[in-house]
C-alpha cells in the first residue's frame, strides 16, 4: 500500500461500549449477586437517560427493564455454561399518534446494543415503500437489501400493517412478509424486528398474519399521555431548544393542553411539539415588533403568555386545521397532524 499517492486517513468508527459484555465473569464461577452485575454493567445509566429523555411511559419503561433482566440473567447463565437459545426480541409497539412509538423504537437499538444483545446500534427505519416492489421480481431484492442493511441491529417497520393489502390479491406485500418471517425465525441473532402502528390496525394485521404474531415476543402498548405529562413533555422540548416559559406562559400552556387534548385530531406529544413550534414563531414576531428594544439572552429564550393565548384553540378552533374542518368527527386520520 506504500504506492498510494495520498492515502486518505479514515477514522474507524469508534467501537461503542457494550455494557454487558464489559463485565467479565470468571468462567464457571457464580458471581456474588445480580445486583452486583447490574451495578457494574452501565445499564443503570442507560435507564437513567431513558427516564430523563422520555416523560411518563411507565409501562413501556417497565417492559424494557424486564427485557434487560432477561438478558442479564441469560448472560450469567451462559457464563456458567447453562446454554439456552438466545431469547427472541422481536417487538410490536402499538398506541395512538404521537405517543412516542417511533422515538422509543429509535432508542431500542441503543439499548439492546448496550445490553450486548445486538452487535451494532444501527436502526434501519422503513415503511412499506422501502420493502415492497412495483412489479414481479422487484420485491424480493428490495426486501433483502433492507434486511441486509439492518442486520446486526434493529429493523424498524413503521405502520407495518400497510405491508399487507388483503383487498388486492396480487399485492407484493405478501412476498415481503414471507421473506421477513423467514429471517425473523432463522436469523434471530442477526436481526431484531420492531413493528409499530395503531392498535386496531395492528390487531387486524396480526390476525391476518398469524406467523407474524407468533414471532413477535413482546407486545408493548403505549398509553395516551395525561395533561401533566404533556405539560412536562412541552417543557422538556422547550428546554432542549433553549427556550423556556415564564410563569404566566406556563399556566397558559397548561390551560392550552387541557383544551387541546379533548379536541379531535389530538396527537399527544406531537401536537405539543407543533404548538410549541407555533409559539416560537409568535415569539419571533413579537421580538420583531419590539425591534428597537435592546436584545437580551433572556428575551430571546423566553416564551410569554401572549404567545400561547393567541392560539385559536382558546377560541374553539384547532390549530393546524383550516377553519371549519375541526369539529368534523373523524374527518382526518390519526396522525394527520404531522
Amino acid at each position, binding site marked *: 500500500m506504500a504506492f498510494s499517492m495520498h492515502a486518505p486517513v479514515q477514522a474507524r468508527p469508534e467501537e461503542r461500549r457494550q455494557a454487558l459484555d464489559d463485565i467479565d465473569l470468571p468462567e464457571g464461577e457464580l458471581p456474588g449477586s445480580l445486583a452486583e452485575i447490574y451495578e457494574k454493567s452501565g445499564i443503570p445509566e442507560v435507564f437513567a437517560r431513558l427516564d430523563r429523555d422520555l416523560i411518563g411511559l411507565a409501562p413501556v419503561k417497565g417492559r424494557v427493564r424486564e427485557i434487560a433482566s432477561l438478558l442479564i440473567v441469560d448472560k450469567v447463565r451462559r457464563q456458567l455454561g447453562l446454554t439456552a437459545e438466545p431469547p427472541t426480541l422481536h417487538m410490536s409497539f402499538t398506541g395512538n399518534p404521537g405517543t412516542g412509538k417511533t422515538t422509543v423504537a429509535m432508542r431500542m437499538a441503543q439499548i439492546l446494543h448496550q445490553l450486548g444483545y445486538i*452487535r451494532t446500534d444501527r436502526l434501519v427505519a422503513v415503511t412499506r415503500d422501502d420493502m415492497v416492489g412495483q412489479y414481479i421480481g422487484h420485491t424480493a431484492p428490495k426486501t433483502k437489501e433492507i434486511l*441486509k442493511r439492518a442486520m*446486526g441491529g434493529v429493523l424498524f417497520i413503521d405502520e407495518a400493517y400497510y405491508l399487507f393489502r388483503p383487498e388486492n390479491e396480487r399485492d407484493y406485500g405478501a412476498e415481503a412478509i414471507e421473506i421477513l418471517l423467514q429471517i425473523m425465525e432463522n436469523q434471530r441473532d442477526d436481526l431484531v424486528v420492531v413493528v409499530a402502528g395503531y392498535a386496531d390496525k395492528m390487531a387486524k394485521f396480526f390476525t391476518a398474519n398469524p406467523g407474524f404474531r407468533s414471532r413477535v415476543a413482546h407486545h408493548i402498548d403505549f398509553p395516551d399521555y395525561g395533561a401533566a405529562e404533556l405539560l412536562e413533555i412541552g417543557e422538556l422540548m422547550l428546554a432542549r431548544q433553549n427556550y423556556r416559559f415564564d410563569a404566566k406562559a406556563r399556566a397558559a400552556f397548561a390551560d392550552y393542553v387541557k383544551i387541546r387534548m379533548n379536541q379531535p385530531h389530538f396527537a399527544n406529544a406531537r401536537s405539543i411539539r407543533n404548538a410549541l413550534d407555533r409559539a416560537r414563531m409568535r415569539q419571533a414576531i413579537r421580538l420583531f415588533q419590539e425591534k428597537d428594544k435592546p436584545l437580551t439572552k433572556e428575551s430571546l429564550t423566553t416564551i410569554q403568555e401572549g404567545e400561547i393565548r393567541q392560539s385559536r384553540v382558546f377560541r374553539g378552533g384547532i390549530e393546524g386545521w383550516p377553519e371549519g374542518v375541526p369539529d368534523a368527527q373523524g374527518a382526518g386520520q390519526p396522525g394527520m397532524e404531522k
Partner: protein
Amino acid sequence: MPMTQGTFSFLPDLTDEQIRAQVKYCFDNGWAVNIEYTDDPHPRNTYWEMWDLPMFDLADPAGVITELEACKKVFPNHYIRISAFDSTAGWESLRISFIVNRPKEEPGYHLERNETHGRTVQYTLRPYATQKPAGQRY
C-alpha cells in the same frame, strides 16, 4: 492443487469466523463489499461473475454472510471470493480480495512450454478444468 490468490493466500482457507472478521474490517474502513464467483481458476481471469450487488451500507457482516451462504447454495463447487472496493479519492480501486469457497477437487494446471526462435521458451498455463465448457467444470 488448490488455487491461491488474494489476501492471506498462503494460509489455510479462512474459517467462517475469520471471514466475518475480514468483512467487518472492510465495513469499518468504509469499503463496499462484493461477492464474486467463477469456474475458471486461471490467475489472469479477471472476469468473475458478481453475485448480487455490491454491499456498501451495511453495519454488520451478517448481511454478507447471508448472501455468501445463498451463493454457495447455488454454486457449491465454484470458486467464490469476497472483495472490497475503496471509493475514496486517490484509491478508487479494490483494497482486498480473498477466496471464501473452492471446488472440492481442483485438478490444477498444465504448464505448456513453447520453444520459439533461438532457445526462447514461452510458458502457457492452462487449468485442466477449463478444458470442459463453462458450467461443467467442477
